[in-house]
């Protein structure tokens, strides 16, 4: 082989002239080059040079000072999910960096493009347990798609170029670049070239047309085909191609919580939600379809329930960008690797126009049962006690379904996702994979800043709200028009529900004696209202939705209401309970 030089590890596009600047300034200039005009973060010793440089570029980059780094990380996620751009988040070393970890883990499991930049102690101090030193590279490794520690100013352009490319390409995810303080102070000849490929990384697998043919063959011969779609449709911006595909084939389609809003709620082929608190038909009929077509979803256990009782009768087609997802949980018959947009375009060409009226009717029959046993009462309760569902129903009426829904985690999340009507994509922002309480409020802030033209409604529970409510200050400071709906049941509702159903009603540490949330919101200068009875609910929601600016509405809902249907954990999807 001789002396062949190892080829460049990354390829680059575009060139420019060099200029001598500090590492810190390079960081800011790179953010601008990458199209970042908004970043979330929190300053501290080890990242001060970067903040100092941000001061010079305030016109180009707006820095949002969160009130906790976890808040900054979820805000960056909310921003990315609402507008599709990479979310950026800055923090100092040590506690600043460790506070980011929950956000990174959330972004990792929900494939959200986020670039985190952390300051680090000077390189000469690395490993010495210096003040505010933590091994953020080690700690963040399991929860990042990629991370890198920069110890010299000259490394900054390449490291950040790679960071942005990796965060947004292929299956997106969070990346972290840790920059020592001396690298921020040090100088470099600045020349920024965006990264367009990394030789050891395959952005998207090349489409194998023979797999498309095999998939089409199965679909064309199927009697009861069934589609499960996930966030992959949204991430690939394949909403249009997806709709064309289902309309041509007439296949009933159900969504995972991460796929929600990729297809409008009222579409005749949208049969509803999968999973533990999903709809009755979509779960039950999973075990009756003959061909199961999974598109950009990963068969999370919240979706599949007990795998040994999951769709055993079906041939499975899996359209997926990440080879590691194939056969991870459910064995596929045909795996179509690639970007959902490309795969769906090709697949649509080969499938025959069809309709599955009888099969679709089965879903409608299930809907009817679910309506009678669950939905009607949830949306139009006969009891005097307010339900979460009726609040959501009125919000739908008032917004017409074109708002962005951001939820926290718990019963309110399930109810809001089940009953909100969506008319456009990228409208549901929730912590699906990690189930992070405290996600909702900061993510809504990020969403409101990422999609300022849209109405953003954060639906939160009284438990999760108290995990990150300090971000009300950030909402006040940025004037973000976040509407916060607190569904207060004075319980950690979802856990209480499990205690009621599976632990003999032993309510161990789930009841909360809460603070006065009205006073809290007022303390943050946010207009508030509280509803305890039905007669003024509608007017309050009207005001909530139409108010121009942030607003806090608290609704006291049934303390011991439950979310149904439910697939109890350990059960199969067909064992879904309506009561």
């Amino acid at each position, binding site marked *: 082989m001789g002396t*062949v030089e190892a080829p460049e590890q990354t390829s680059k596009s575009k060139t420019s002239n060099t200029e001598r600047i500090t590492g810190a300034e390079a960081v800011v200039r790179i953010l601008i080059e990458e199209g970042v005009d908004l970043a979330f973060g929190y300053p501290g010793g080890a990242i001060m040079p970067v903040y100092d440089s941000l001061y010079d570029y305030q016109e180009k980059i707006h820095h949002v000072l969160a009130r906790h780094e976890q808040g900054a990380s979820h805000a960056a996620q909310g921003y990315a999910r609402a507008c599709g751009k990479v979310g950026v988040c800055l923090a100092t070393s040590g506690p600043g960096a460790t506070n980011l970890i929950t956000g990174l883990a959330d972004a990792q499991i929900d494939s959200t493009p986020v670039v985190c930049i952390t300051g680090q102690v000077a390189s000469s101090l690395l490993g010495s347990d210096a003040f505010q030193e933590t091994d953020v590279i080690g700690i963040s*490794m399991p929860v990042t*798609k990629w991370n*890198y520690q920069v110890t010299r100013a000259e490394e900054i352009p390449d490291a950040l170029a790679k960071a942005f490319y990796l965060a947004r390409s292929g299956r997106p995810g969070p990346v972290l670049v840790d920059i020592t303080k001396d690298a921020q102070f040090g100088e470099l000849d600045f020349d920024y070239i965006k990264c367009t490929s990394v030789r*050891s990384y395959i952005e998207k697998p090349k489409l194998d047309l023979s797999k498309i043919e095999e998939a089409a063959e199965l679909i064309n011969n199927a009697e009861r085909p069934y589609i499960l779609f996930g966030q992959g449709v949204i991430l690939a911006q394949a909403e249009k191609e997806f709709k064309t595909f289902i309309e041509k084939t007439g296949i009933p389609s159900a969504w995972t919580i991460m796929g929600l809003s990729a297809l409008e709620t009222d579409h005749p082929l949208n049969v509803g939600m999968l999973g533990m608190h999903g709809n009755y038909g979509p779960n039950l009929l999973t075990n009756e379809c003959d061909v199961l077509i999974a598109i950009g979803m990963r068969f999370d256990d919240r979706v599949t329930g007990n795998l040994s009782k999951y769709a055993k009768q079906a041939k499975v087609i899996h359209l997926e960008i990440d080879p590691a997802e194939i056969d991870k949980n459910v064995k596929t018959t045909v795996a179509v690797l690639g970007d959902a947009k490309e795969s769906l375009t090709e697949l649509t060409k080969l499938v025959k126009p069809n309709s599955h009226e009888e099969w679709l009717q089965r879903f409608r029959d299930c809907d009817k049962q679910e309506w009678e046993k669950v939905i009607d009462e949830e949306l139009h309760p006969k009891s005097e006690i307010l339900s979460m569902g009726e609040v959501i129903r009125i919000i739908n009426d008032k917004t017409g379904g074109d708002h962005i829904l951001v939820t926290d985690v718990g019963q309110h999340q399930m109810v809001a996702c089940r009953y909100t009507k969506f008319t456009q994509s990228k409208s549901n922002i929730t912590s699906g994979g990690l189930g992070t309480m405290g996600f909702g409020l900061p993510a809504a802030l990020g969403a409101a800043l990422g999609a300022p033209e849209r109405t953003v409604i954060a639906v939160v529970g009284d438990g999760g709200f108290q995990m990150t409510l300090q971000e009300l200050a950030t909402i006040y400071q940025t004037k973000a028009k976040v509407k916060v709906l607190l569904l207060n049941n004075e319980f950690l509702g979802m856990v209480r529900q499990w205690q009621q159903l599976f632990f003999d009603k032993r309510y161990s540490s789930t009841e909360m004696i809460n603070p006065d949330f009205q006073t809290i919101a007022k303390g943050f200068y946010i207009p508030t209202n509280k509803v305890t009875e039905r007669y003024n609910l509608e007017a309050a929601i009207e005001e909530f939705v139409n108010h121009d600016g942030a607003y806090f509405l608290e609704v006291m809902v049934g303390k011991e209401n439950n979310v149904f249907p439910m697939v109890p954990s350990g059960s199969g999807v067909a064992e879904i309970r309506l009561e």
Partner: protein
Amino acid sequence: MDKQEFTITAYTENHVGLLHRITIIFTKRKINIESLTTSESEREGIHRFTIAVTETEELVQKVVKQIEKQVEVLKAGYYKKKEVVQQELALYKLRTDSLTNGLEVERIVREHGARFLTIEKEFVVIEKAGFKRETKALFDELKQYDIVEFVRSGRIAVSREQYGLGKQVEELLTVSQ
């Protein structure tokens, strides 16, 4: 599915921290790594991981895909026992004065296809390459002479295929140039 011995091979960039990223995949699933070796590969600048595990094939397949998914990994694959030529190296240090019957030790060393790496005034070091069971057999025989130190390297292995993964790495690098 039954557990069996597998050798996982990964061709990678030489990147600080990649070792940690790869071991995390095993830790997450609580899989015990029997041995792990990294070294240069046949291609300049490309490193090679060799990981020995005893697991079910289904799990090994999943793990290999997750290894290959790491940004700095070029290619990963796995082999069953019969599909590789493998080797381990063991070193045995004995006190020179405990070899009361030098001839006897020499016979053992010869019979096991081992050799004296060094003979000093205070101690001798014996080296043996082979399967674990072979290095273990020598260990058992030398035990009577009081082994002061013993160490065995991780497994290294090359595939019995004509080209193996290296060929695919070659192709990947040609495409990306």
